C-alpha cells in the first residue's frame, strides 16, 4: 500500500495481489533510442567528473545555478507508490509555479518491477532525473554510480542536512558522501484498539509498558471461539516484516542485526536470539498472535481494521490507513520497552539519476520537495516528511491524539540495517526465520543458519566492494 516502506516479501505479495492488473499490463516500453543517445552524449563533463569511479569529486565546476537564473529543464521522475502519486503531482504543480522553467513528469512503476526497471534503464543510459530510493536498494545504485553524489550541490546551496534525522542521512551516505534527500520517514510504534481494551477493563499501553506487560495484555485480549479457533488476537509478530517487527525487538534487547563494520550478521548472538524467541513465543507458545498461515491470507492491517487484533507495531503510514475506522477507537503508544527503548527508522529518499542532463535543476527540485516549507506542509496532510521539523508538524495533528510517539522515537531510533547486498541476505535470513515462526525449527538453529548464510553473502559483498 505505502510502497515507500516496502522491504519485505509479504508486503510485496500484498502489493502484487492488489496491483495484479497493473503487473500484468505493464510492459517495458519507454526507451526511445534517440533520447538514449542524446542523454549519454550530452552528459556534462562536470557531472562525469563528480561521479568518477575513484570517488574524487570536483566541486568547483558543478556548483548549481543560484536561484532565479535557472535554465529551462524537462525532468523525468520515477515513482513506485500509486497511493501518493496525486499528492506528488500537486506538489510538482506548485513547484512549476515557483520555477516555471522546470517541468517535471512522473512515471509510475509498480514496486514489483521498480528496481529491475530502474536498473535496465540505467544500463541503457536512459535513466530518470529524479529517482526514489529505499534503504535496501540504495547502495546497489550508489556503488555503481547510478545516482549522483549530492555533496557538492548541498554545499553550494548551503542546504542544512541536519534537519534530516541522523540515521536517515547515514542510510543514504556512501563513502562519506550524501546521495539522497529523505522524502519521508518512519519510526515504529504500537497501534492499539482502545475499544477492545476498554471492553475488558485492561489499562491501555503507555510508556511504562515492558515486554511482560505487553505479553500479559496480549493474553487477556486473545479470544477463541466456540470451535477453539481464535477470533481475536492480542498482537502480531512475523518473520517477514522485519522493519515493523523483529528489527525493533532485537534493538530493544541491546542486540544488533549487523556489526559496526557491516561485515557480519549478529543474529546468532544471545541478545538477538532472545528477542526473536520472545516474538516466536507470542505465536507458538502463548498463541496470542496469528499463525504465519493466517498472516499469509490476512495482513495485520486487515485484522486490525476488522477489530480482530488488539495491538500491532506499525509505522506512521498506518495512521492514514486507519483513518476510515469508525466502529472502534484506536491510538498509538511507544513500543513496549525492553532493556532499552529502541526502534528502527527508515524512509525513502529523492536521488538524482546519473544520466541526467540537468543536475542543477534536478537538485533544486528535490531540495524544494524535501525541505521547503510549502512541500512539507503538503506532505503532512498525508505522511511524515523526511525532515525532523516536518515530522513534528505531522505529529502535532490529530487524530489520533498521540502521534507525537513517532517524532519522539526519532531520538531513540536505530539505523536501518542495510548493506550492498541487503536484499540477498535478508532473503536468506527471512527464509530461515520463517521456519522458526512456523515452529519447524528452533529459534537458535534458525538464527545460526540465518547468520551463517548471511555472512557468506556479506563475504561476497566485501569481495565485490573491493572491485569498486
Amino acid at each position: 500500500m505505502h510502497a515507500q516502506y516496502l522491504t519485505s516479501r509479504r508486503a510485496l505479495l500484498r502489493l502484487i495481489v492488489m496491483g495484479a492488473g497493473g503487473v500484468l499490463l505493464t510492459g517495458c516500453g519507454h526507451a526511445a533510442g534517440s533520447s538514449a543517445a542524446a542523454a549519454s552524449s550530452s552528459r556534462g563533463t562536470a557531472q562525469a567528473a563528480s561521479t568518477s569511479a575513484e570517488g574524487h569529486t570536483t566541486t568547483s565546476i558543478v556548483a548549481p545555478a543560484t536561484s532565479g537564473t535557472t535554465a529551462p529543464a524537462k525532468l523525468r521522475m520515477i515513482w513506485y507508490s500509486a497511493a501518493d502519486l496525486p499528492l506528488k503531482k500537486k506538489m510538482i504543480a506548485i513547484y512549476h509555479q515557483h520555477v516555471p522553467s522546470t517541468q517535471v513528469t512522473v512515471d509510475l512503476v509498480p514496486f514489483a518491477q521498480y528496481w529491475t526497471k530502474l536498473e535496465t534503464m540505467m544500463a541503457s543510459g536512459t535513466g530518470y532525473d529524479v529517482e526514489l530510493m529505499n534503504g535496501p536498494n540504495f547502495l546497489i545504485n550508489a556503488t555503481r554510480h547510478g545516482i549522483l553524489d549530492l555533496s557538492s550541490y548541498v554545499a553550494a546551496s548551503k542546504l542544512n542536512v541536519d534537519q534530516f534525522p541522523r540515521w536517515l542521512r547515514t542510510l543514504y551516505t556512501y563513502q562519506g558522501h550524501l546521495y539522497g534527500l529523505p522524502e519521508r520517514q518512519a519510526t515504529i510504534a504500537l497501534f492499539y484498539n482502545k475499544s477492545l481494551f476498554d471492553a475488558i477493563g485492561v489499562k491501555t499501553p503507555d510508556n511504562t509498558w515492558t515486554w511482560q506487560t505487553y505479553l500479559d495484555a496480549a493474553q487477556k485480549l486473545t479470544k477463541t471461539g466456540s470451535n477453539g479457533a481464535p477470533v481475536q488476537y492480542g498482537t502480531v509478530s512475523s518473520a517477514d516484516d522485519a522493519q515493523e517487527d523483529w528489527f525493533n525487538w532485537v534493538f530493544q534487547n541491546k542486540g544488533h542485526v549487523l556489526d559496526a563494520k557491516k561485515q557480519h550478521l549478529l543474529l546468532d548472538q544471545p541478545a538477538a536470539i532472545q528477542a526473536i524467541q520472545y516474538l516466536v513465543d507470542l505465536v507458538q507458545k502463548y498463541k496470542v498472535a496469528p499463525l504465519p498461515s493466517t498472516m499469509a491470507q490476512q495482513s495485520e492491517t486487515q485484522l486490525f481494521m476488522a477489530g480482530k487484533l488488539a495491538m500491532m507495531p506499525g509505522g506512521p503510514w498506518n495512521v492514514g490507513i486507519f483513518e476510515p475506522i469508525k466502529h472502534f477507537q484506536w491510538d498509538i503508544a511507544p513500543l513496549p520497552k525492553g532493556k532499552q527503548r529502541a526502534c528502527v527508522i527508515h524512509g525513502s529518499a529523492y536521488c538524482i539519476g546519473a544520466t541526467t542532463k540537468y543536475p542543477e535543476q534536478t537538485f533544486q527540485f528535490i531540495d524544494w520537495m524535501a525541505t521547503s516549507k510549502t512541500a512539507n506542509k503538503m506532505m503532512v496532510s498525508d505522511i511524515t516528511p523526511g525532515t525532523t521539523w516536518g515530522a513534528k508538524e505531522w505529529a502535532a495533528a490529530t487524530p489520533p491524539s498521540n502521534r507525537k510517539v513517532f517524532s519522539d522515537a526519532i531520538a531513540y531510533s536505530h539505523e536501518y540495517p542495510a548493506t550492498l547486498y541487503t536484499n540477498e541476505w535478508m532473503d536468506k535470513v527471512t527464509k530461515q526465520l520463517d521456519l522458526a515462526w512456523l515452529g519447524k525449527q528452533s529459534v537458535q538453529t534458525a538464527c545460526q543458519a540465518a547468520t551463517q548464510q548471511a555472512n557468506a553473502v556479506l563475504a561476497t559483498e566485501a569481495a565485490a566492494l573491493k572491485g569498486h
Partner: protein
Amino acid sequence: MGTLRRREALWAYALLFPTIVLFLVFMAGPLVASFLISLMHWSLLSPPRWAGLGQYQHLLHDSAFWTAVGNTAYFTAGTVLPRLVLALLLALALNRKMRARNLYRTIYFLPVVSMLVAVALVWSWLYSPQDGLINYALALVHLPQPAWLSSTRWAMPAIIIMSIWKTVGYDMILYLAGLQSIPEHLYEAARIDGANRWNLFQHITFPLLTPTTFFVLVVSVIGSFQVFDQAYIMTQGGPGYATTTLVYYIYNNAFQWFHMGYAAAQAWVLLVLVLGMTLLQLWGQRRWVFYQ
C-alpha cells in the same frame, strides 16, 4: 548442370538468410554471451570483472542452489507422470462419441490458455488455510486441512497440483491428435480376431501412442525444469526454501540481487541438466517407442 545447382544453392541460402540472422541474433548470440557472462562478475552497471570458473566453484558450495535443484527435481517428479496418465485418460474419454464433446474438450483446455499469473493468484485463494474452498471441502469430509502454501511440507504439493491442472489440457490435446491418427482398420481387424476393449488398448492404442507419449514426456520434463511463475506468485520460494525452484533462484540472483555472472552460471547448469535428461530420453526411446 553445375550452374543450376549453384543457383539453387544460392536461392536456398537467400531464403534461409532471415532465419539464420534471427537465429544468430536471438539464439546463438545470447547463448554465447550468457556463457561468457558466466565467467565474470557483473552487476549490470559496473564493468564486468573476469572470474574464470569462480562462479561455478561458488555454485558447488551454495546450499541454496542445491536445494533449488532438489526442489525442481521434486516438482518434475510430481508433475510429469500424473500429467501423462491424466492426459491419456482424459483423451480416451473425450475421444468417444458423446454429447457436448467439444464443450468438455474446451473446458479442459481452458486452463492452458489462461494467464498463469492470474491462475496462480486464484489458486492461492483456493489454498487459503482458513477460508479457502479446498480446505472447506476437506473439512466437509473430515480430512485434515493442511496450511498449504504456508506449510513447508504442503507448499510444493500445492504448486504441483495446480500445475497439473494448468497443463494437463495441453497434453490431452496431443493425445487426442495421436488417437485420431490411429487407423480404424487396425481396430476392426483386432475385433474380428476377438479382441476385447482392454486388448485393443493394450496392443493397439497404447503402442501406437508411444510417439505421442515420448513427445509429451520430453516436453513436460523440459517445462517442469523451468517452473517459475508459480513459485514467484504463490510462495516467493517459501516457506523457508520449500518452493525455491532453480529458475526462481536464477531470477533472484540476476534481477533482484544483480549477480549476472552467477545467474548465468546457474542457467548453464540448468541447460546441461535439461540437455542431459533429454539425451537420456532420446537414447532410451529406442526401447519403448513404437513407430508405425
